[in-house]
């Protein structure tokens, strides 16, 4: 990506881009996902530098963003060209920023490793199970291994599945980007 484009993005955020350049840049944003992604990162950096980021993800933040996005429904009255182009791009950037903030928040949770694995205190119970006591448990960083899908699909049907009534576990499967192994055993 050319340095001149990057610079224009930065100037756009500072609201110092002239009308002609702004219109051209916004058209590029509407067609270029990579450019849009870069804009959202610049926004996040800018917010961080100006201490505008919340300490944690504020659930109401999503609501404010949603309110700022263009509404679905009947077309609005004609507006200046620059404004019409700005809204979709701003909406995309805002939505991307929301996702970035939320992702950063989620990632921070995953990266916490308060302690190395330690023996779990236990106590025998009458039914023979050893009940684990409440001791700090490290958050491991896990990956998705090949061959896991067959267990997940099977287990999903037995899980109680709070929320989404049976589909949330499948959201995890559909949401998985990297290739799952093609377990050829049992193919028909």
């Amino acid at each position, binding site marked *: 990506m050319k340095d001149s484009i990057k610079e224009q993005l930065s100037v756009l955020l500072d609201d110092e881009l002239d009308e002609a350049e702004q219109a051209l840049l916004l058209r590029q944003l509407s067609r270029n996902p990579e450019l849009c992604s870069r804009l959202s990162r610049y926004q996040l950096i800018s917010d961080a530098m100006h201490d505008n980021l919340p300490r944690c993800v504020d659930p109401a933040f999503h609501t404010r963003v949603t309110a700022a996005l263009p509404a679905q429904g009947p077309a609005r009255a004609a507006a200046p060209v620059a404004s019409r182009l700005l809204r979709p791009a701003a909406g995309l950037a805002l939505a991307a920023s929301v996702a970035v903030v939320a992702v950063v928040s989620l990632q921070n949770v995953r990266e916490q490793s308060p302690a190395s694995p330690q023996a779990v205190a236990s106590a025998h119970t009458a039914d023979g199970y050893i*009940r*684990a006591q409440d001791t700090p448990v490290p958050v491991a960083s896990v990956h998705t291994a090949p*061959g896991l899908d067959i267990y997940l699909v099977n*287990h999903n*049907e037995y899980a*109680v599945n709070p*929320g989404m009534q049976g589909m949330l576990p499948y959201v995890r499967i559909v949401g998985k*980007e990297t290739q799952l192994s093609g377990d050829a055993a049992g193919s028909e």
Partner: protein
Amino acid sequence: MRCLLIVLLAASTQVVAGDSARQWLDDMSGALQNLNYDGTFVYLHDDHMEAMRIIHRVDEVGQRERLLSLSGSAREVLRDDRTVTCILPDNKSVMVGQSRPSQPFPQLPKDLDSISRYYLLEDVGDDRMTGFPARVIAITPRDRYRYGYRFWVDKDSAMLLKSDLTTVDGKPIEQVMFTRLSIGADISEDDLQPSMSGDGYEWSRQMDGGKQARSPDSSPGWVVRRLPDGFNLTHYQHRPMRKGRGDAQHMVFSDGLATVSVYIEDADKIRDPLSGLSGMGAMNAYGTVIEGYQVTVVGEVPPATVEMVAGSVSRGAQDD
């Protein structure tokens, strides 16, 4: 006397709050099962964000639903009362499994005392989500061996608008948030059809059935000796996982909200055994080999929980 009254009032307030939360959850469950809806949502987990669409219809035949990804490859899941079909273009495979009837959520007993030992149910209050007025319900675990939940429920229809799966400290691990939702919409038959036929794909079918058995006679008994408090055996069966792989012993444990499955199979018959920790979103798994058998533990519980459970599997009878 005044102290007693305060204690009683606090206790009764907690009961009322718990009852209110439970009512909202029951209503949400009913809405998810009984309403037609078509929505777009984002799924946030680890360092990924995915956009998806879900379509749900109820008619005289029963429930049908379709879940499809809107980014990346066209992964989708179709589900009705009998089968669940997962279409995974990434590896050109289709998996067909047996669908179990949806259970009302959650399987909370009428008496909240039994589950309140492990979770705190709270009616947190009002919020606004996806343009709808919402009620926020929280389910907070009391220890670090299970996850919690937070739901935003539409106050009018009781539809789920957003859900967070959280650590015991309330930090979200997974988030599902609707960005567009049409409730009560007419769902056409075309909307419930897969976008691809699966021609040329590798099809695998989870074998139906499975013998329900307390302790199979032909195989050594297995027991799980270490579980978080409140987890009890809810299902036990011998079942074929996949053709050519032999039977698996499958035990299901649940505390009423979280569920953990333990699979025990002949390790020699598994081509790509799971070893160590693995996961997908908030679903974690741990695989190990014990005395020539592949032990795989799967559940929507923290990684350390599945590892602990897997490490406690051994041969023997329950009373050993």
